[in-house]
């Protein structure tokens, strides 16, 4: 375990150093991230210029969901996707051999291979959105609510990462399909709305099959103190099962890997 942490630390240091070489890009990409957060907010601002509540969610409550969405999107596009895209590239060119030969867990190595540190702007943006939302609500969340939200957030990150690993595992079987991760990124946009927005088939799909809506809705409900303990524990149990499944698929895929180069 200590060794794994040391590896993660070393990998992260290397990828941050690599990204910080391009300082101008840091500024430009940071500015772009702010622009995209603004574009994300526009539809909600327009909606709540017209209505006071949408399917039971008021403006500040909806902002909490959007805050989690902006933060998770930042993690997905700043850390998870860049790293896992390199895996697809490794599989295609056959250089995954070099990763597999290293005396450490391959999944761990590839998962922190590449970072886009300017995506920290997304996390800051989410912080501003939270501050504004709680200003509007006229209260601060209690320690217990923050703790519950933190637990739900860890669960959400785990699910996010597990889905990405599952998507990448497809690369071992269908090498030519290298834009699947991009597809997942665009499907993740669904998570910007509370899960109750969706009805019928879509509600089932985004709650149970591809639990995107829950990733942002549950942490937001936790911050509002509205998440029931049973629901939270159920969600966490589901998360752990899902992560274990993803891990199993990954190991199975690695076993299928026949180097493309040699």
């Amino acid at each position, binding site marked *: 375990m200590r060794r794994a942490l040391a590896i993660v630390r070393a990998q992260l240091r290397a990828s941050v150093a690599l990204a910080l070489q391009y300082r101008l890009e840091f500024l430009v990409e940071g500015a772009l991230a702010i622009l995209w957060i603004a574009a994300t907010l526009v539809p909600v601002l327009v909606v709540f210029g017209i209505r006071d509540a949408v*399917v039971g969610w008021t403006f500040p409550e909806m902002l909490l969901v959007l805050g989690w969405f902006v933060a998770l999107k930042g993690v997905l596009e700043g850390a998870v996707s860049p790293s896992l895209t390199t895996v697809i590239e490794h599989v295609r060119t056959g250089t995954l051999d070099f990763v597999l030969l290293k005396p450490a867990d391959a999944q761990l190595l590839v998962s922190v291979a590449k970072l886009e540190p300017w995506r920290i702007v997304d996390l800051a943006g989410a912080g501003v959105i939270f501050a504004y939302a709680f200003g509007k609500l006229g209260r601060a969340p209690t320690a217990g609510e923050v703790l519950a939200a933190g637990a739900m957030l860890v669960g959400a990150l785990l699910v996010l990462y597990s889905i990405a690993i599952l998507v990448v595992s497809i690369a071992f079987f269908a090498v030519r399909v290298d834009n699947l991760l991009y*597809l997942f990124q665009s*499907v993740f946009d669904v998570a910007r709305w509370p899960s109750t927005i969706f009805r019928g088939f*879509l509600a089932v799909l985004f709650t149970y099959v591809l639990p995107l809506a829950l990733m942002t809705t549950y942490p937001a409900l936790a911050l509002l103190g509205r998440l029931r303990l049973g629901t939270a524990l159920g969600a966490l149990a589901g998360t752990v099962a899902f992560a274990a499944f993803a891990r199993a698929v990954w190991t199975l895929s690695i076993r299928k890997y026949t180097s493309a180069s040699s």
Partner: protein
Amino acid sequence: MSLRAAARAYPALLRTGFASAVAYRAEFLIWMFSTNMPLIMLALWAAVARSGPVGAYSERGFAAYYLCTLLVRLLTGSWVVWELTMEIRQGVLAMRLLRPIHPLVAYSAENLAAVPLRGMVALPVVCILMWSVRGQLGHDPFLWIMLPPALFGAWLLTFLVMALIGTLALYFESATSIFEAWLGVSAVLSGYLVPLDLFPQAVQRIALFLPFRFLLSFPVELMLGKHGAQHALALLGAQWLYVAAALLATNLVWRAGLRRYAAYGG
């Protein structure tokens, strides 16, 4: 290069472009499926409209709006900016410059050739959905006649803006960042996220004059029958003025840029 030579070569270029789109069909489909923002926005607005219509839009009205948006986006999509900036950076452009056809003409053929395949994949689905909201679509046949030139104008404007920004890669490296910024502003002001007539008056007034509207919202407005024939004709004229301006600008920037181009890599 003469215009006649380009016109003679164009059908062959279209055929090869179509063949390459068919060859990479799995990727092609995935790119298409990742265009899902109109449906995500529809989910929000449908939920809003459940408690009564918003402005001119009922729940069905929103469905019609966003389905038209999806269709227009799929039919007018282009990707030349990514290809152009990459080829400039890697020096592949040098090879294109050797060919007896203007590189931008060749790119336009490649991009245009993907439209029929996209149409074939999207049309059956969209037609069925459109049928379910047919009451919301426009009834004036004149507007429907104007739709093809409006769609072509939207495609051409999209392509030219991409080509223009992509050409900037001849001057500096972060041309794709400029395009991303354009995308962000365009998402808001072209009606991709929110119908333009739901914005506050002040924003609307600006958005209606900027080029973004003619990339997406204008063909959608025609399909929904939002304008009288005369007004629509004036808008079509305005769209093609923007197309002409973009063509001129792209040409100027391309010529000046090529003079400084020193193929890296070679």
